[in-house]
């Protein structure tokens, strides 16, 4: 768990209205929340706005977080709600929704390049492309596990799913991810 003893103290102070404590929490947790929303939204401006909205809501609900160790999962759960509201708004406004079609073929540039470029950018681009082939729910669960190191139980709480469903969805997400990444990884070896 990434939250040390200080997190409990910071949360107590933040709940008592200490702005500095909440600022420290923000700077520790916001990079992860921002990356999570960036992976879901695929829009930098929207991910920035979503990160701010997540922390404003988190501040209003600090009293509902019972375990300091669950902070990251709790924040990602709020971020996921913010993401869905953003999607609903986009749909209302007639904008195209994010890719949530499991069957859509992956769009990945598989052209070979120099090793340095591979190391610096291609891996991330490949991973990014592969993640986009997953449904939003499945992507959220997989990111919570692989990118944010949440335990399966924490993911179940954040997603509102049963533990077997979390394991099943992450297993399926992994299989899809591997299918997309195999050509890249085999090419590299």
């Amino acid at each position, binding site marked *: *768990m990434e*939250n040390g*003893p200080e997190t*409990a*103290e910071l949360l*107590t*102070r933040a*709940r*008592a*209205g*200490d*702005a*500095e404590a*909440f*600022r420290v929490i*923000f*700077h520790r947790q*916001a*990079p992860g929340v*921002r*990356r999570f929303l*960036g992976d879901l939204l695929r829009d930098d401006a929207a*991910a*920035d706005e979503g*990160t*701010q909205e997540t*922390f*404003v809501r988190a*501040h*209003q609900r600090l*009293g509902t977080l019972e*375990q*300091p*160790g*669950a902070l990251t999962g709790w924040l990602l759960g709020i971020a996921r709600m913010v993401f869905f509201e953003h999607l609903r708004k986009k749909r209302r406004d007639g904008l195209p929704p994010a890719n949530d079609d499991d069957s859509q073929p992956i769009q990945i540039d598989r052209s070979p390049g120099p090793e340095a470029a591979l190391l610096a950018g291609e*891996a*991330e681009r*490949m*991973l990014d492309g592969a993640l986009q082939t997953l449904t939003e729910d499945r992507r959220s669960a997989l990111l919570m596990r*692989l*990118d944010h190191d949440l335990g*399966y139980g924490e993911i179940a709480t954040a997603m509102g799913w049963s533990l077997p469903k979390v*394991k099943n969805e992450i*297993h399926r997400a*992994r299989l899809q*991810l*591997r299918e997309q*990444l195999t050509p890249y*990884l085999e090419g590299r070896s």
Partner: protein
Amino acid sequence: MSGHPEIDDLEQLAAGDGLAATVAHVEGCPECAQEVAWAKAEKALFARRAQPDVSALWTGVEQRLGQALPQKQKRRPNWHRPFAALASAAAAAAVLLFALRPKPIAPASSSQVAQNQNQPQSAQTQPGQQTGQPQPGPHQRSHLDPKTLAALDTAETDYRHAASVLEAEYDSLRPKLDPAMAKRWDETLTRARTQLGESRAVAADDVRARMRVLDGYAEYLRSLRDVIQDSEEATP
């Protein structure tokens, strides 16, 4: 588990911290070895991802929380004012609290007690912290010695006394304040008092919960101190 280890165990092995049984199984199971190899590859790919810069985002959050956060608090996190009598009361309570911390958490085994006493201070369990260690069960709560409870009562009384002195100080400054500012501070303090009251009500004789209440009192005192500092600066 029928044959193969759970995915959690394989992931743990991929992270370099596998159980001996898992290691032994994977050595003889190509299917699981491949699973571990994939888990390592996934971990490496995710670890390469860039960390986004969020430094510009706090300002927006701060602005949106502007109504809820006392503005000067964030610029002045340290306590410089010499509230000597109150500080000594709080310090006495804090010393008492420190002395009590390991006691209620320690299990009955004498070897474990000795082990706990050898732990460095920074490694000791804080109230509300998850450590992976077994949490005290209800039976432990009901076997508290009267001295521990009495010490907790005394510490709480000290904090309450310190809070009442600071509250009186704030009350004397409040009429001179801008009404909007006073209202905001009132709300902050009321919220803190409510949370304290609720925590105390459910804590009963649970030592860990009681210590969390003391932590809450310490934070409440700090809030009061900041409010008084701001009040004095805002008063002509």
